[in-house]
């Protein structure tokens, strides 16, 4: 059946094209961070709706996402607002249902860097506990909720599209993939590629044989 062959070839070609497009894109990189290598601290924990703000931040130009160090098993809806002089200059929100130790919220990028901004994160909580991670700081510079100082400053990372494409990162990814395993070496990458190609070839041949 010719249609099956056409559908398979077109479908796989589309997958190949999508991989090519993705490889031409650049992954997000950290433009600025206040995360230090020192031990993290739980600076706040809440089971109800809350808004935590942190002053004295710097919003780098072209920031497309803000990453906060939070933990929840079924994360609540989060809204992040960046203000300068009391006026919101960037904002974004993330729907509920995320689960991790960090949450990334996309924001509209600005063409220039803005200093001394305040970042506020609001959570629409129900019952589940949410923990905020950061680093201990004096009351004067700590993050706050309704003018009440928290135990320290929230860890915030500002992300933007990097200058290197995924394609240019392939050698370093391949090198890293060969480390930290039973039999280290770049051969691990080659094996994964061979296996993946074998899987696709076997599946395609079977489709052509059984469905045509």
């Amino acid at each position, binding site marked *: *059946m010719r*249609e*099956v062959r056409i*559908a*398979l070839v077109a*479908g*796989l070609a589309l*997958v190949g094209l*999508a*991989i090519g497009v*993705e490889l031409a894109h650049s*992954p997000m990189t*950290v433009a600025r961070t206040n995360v230090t290598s020192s031990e993290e601290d739980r600076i706040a924990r809440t089971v109800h709706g809350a808004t935590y703000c942190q002053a004295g931040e710097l919003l780098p130009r072209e920031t497309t996402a803000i990453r906060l160090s939070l*933990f929840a*098993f*079924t994360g*609540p*809806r989060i809204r992040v607002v960046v203000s300068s002089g009391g006026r919101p200059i960037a904002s974004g929100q993330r*729907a*509920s*249902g*995320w*689960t*991790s*130790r*960090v949450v990334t919220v*996309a924001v509209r990028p600005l063409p220039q860097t803005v200093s001394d901004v305040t970042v506020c994160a609001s959570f*629409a909580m*129900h*019952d*589940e*506990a949410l923990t905020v991670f950061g680093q201990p700081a004096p009351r004067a510079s700590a993050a706050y909720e309704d003018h009440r100082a928290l135990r320290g400053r929230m860890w915030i*990372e500002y992300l933007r599209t990097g200058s290197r494409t*995924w394609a240019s*990162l392939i050698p*370093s*990814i391949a090198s*890293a*993939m060969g*480390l*930290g*395993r*039973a*039999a*280290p070496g770049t051969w*691990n990458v080659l*094996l*994964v590629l061979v*296996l*993946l190609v*074998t*899987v*696709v070839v*076997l*599946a395609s041949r*079977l*489709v052509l044989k*059984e*469905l*045509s």
Partner: protein
Amino acid sequence: MSRRGGARAPGSTPTKRSTDKREDATSVNGDRRTQVGTRAFTRRARATQRRRAARRTRTSERGVAPIAARLRALSRRAGLGRIPRAAWICALVACLNAVCWSILTPPFQVPDEPDHYAYVKQLADTGSLPVSGREQPAEEILATLIGIRYFEVRQQPQHHAIATSNEQAELERTLASTPHDTGSAVGVARSQPPLYYALETIPYRLAGSGTVLDRLALMRLMSALFAGLTALFAFLFVREALPGAPWAWTVGGLSVALAPLLGLMSGAVNPDSMLFAVSAGLFYLLARAFRRGLDARLAIAVGALSAIGFLTKVNFVGLAPGVLLGLIVLSNRAARASGRSAYRLLALGTGVAFSPVLLYAAVNALSNHAPFGIVSGALGTTRGSLLAQINYIWQLYLPRLPGTVNDFPGLFTTTQLWFDGYVGLYGYLDTTFPGWVYTLALVPAGAIALLCGRSLVQCRAALRERAAELAVYAVMVVGLLALVGAASFKVFPKTDAEFAQTRYLLPLLALLAAALVLAARGAGRRWGPVVGTLIVVVFVAHDVFSQLLVAGRFYS
């Protein structure tokens, strides 16, 4: 009875077709031979025959032929000869895909893998079951976890696996200097039965002289075999349950084989991998029994596989009521044809199935422990009203009913927890696609659902005839969903939905295969194979992009 007697064996269609083809080929050759009929042709043919006969004699003298014949006889006796080649290829694809995932995913970066590894270690090193559910692993495991930066990387996608030769050298020094200590606390794995872990002691011991990472790599390969079995049984299930369009079986089998979540979980040390295979096997056996009738062999097979399920993972308890109902319905049918003696099959099946549970309870009772061990304790902690629990479990999967308390405000659980969890939540539940991918995935999922619905409407008369069989599958589904929901309800509201992880629903993969087969058939006789091809391509794309996502998250 007449339907059972008249039913064509599922394997007969392709076998018949291939035999016909052979016959056709022979007759064509025969015709040609008579047509050509030259002396040269006859000489060449005779020479070829003589060479073949000589080769056969040499081979049989060497003893290969008897062995091959014996193997063929053995596989025929085991029923393996009747399994279509396509099913074996689906199994191979699933197996290779899981091996691929096992290499791609960094050591221990799959939910609870350190605990499951520790269970195997305890069993292999001491020969005894674990007693401690503490999170503190053995020194050997802890040193490895620190060496590979497990604690920094887990659930923190901003951190990556080790990436420099210095870190690698440090890891190798750690692995070489840490002595092999025996036994370990096993964390959350403590409540699990031991069969999967007992099997994993084989690769653990095979790599006994190596490091923790060597043993883990080999143990992951063993899990990958279960992915193959899962795909094989899913294929056989759709062959039995939906025999009408043989071409569509491949769509179901291949799609299951390429499911990335199956690859992730079967590429890791986790009893889920074996549970998926056991569950798919049970769906197959039940479908076979509904199609051909229950006999003693099938009753024992269902019972034995259920017993294996009970010994594999506690979650199997969710499927058990459905299996029991299936045996009752099938025995009733058999009784209508062959009298009350058919109820012996029910006794046989349930006796074999529940024997490990009863044995476990008896041993506990004799040693003055709770009959079902840690599970009894968990059952005892049930809290809240039954209505509140039912309401919670309903909302964990489906939209809230009017007039009920909203347990998940602002959260559409069906898509945000379950669908999104299927589309992409890898690593230690910390690796996700960008948000738009989940929205885009609704398009093919919606199209598949529509086509599947169309197919069901078209064959509604057949569905009515098979209502009892469908009810059995439905009870298995509801049982599993209720079990996961009840476990989540125990920690609610401290945690909204702790066990809302799509991997817990993968024991129902055989039904996903059936839904995909129905979707392909729903496109009609002409376009069905094309739609089936596109479904497989979607699963290929999903698998490939999921693997790229994981590579980018851990190694970029």
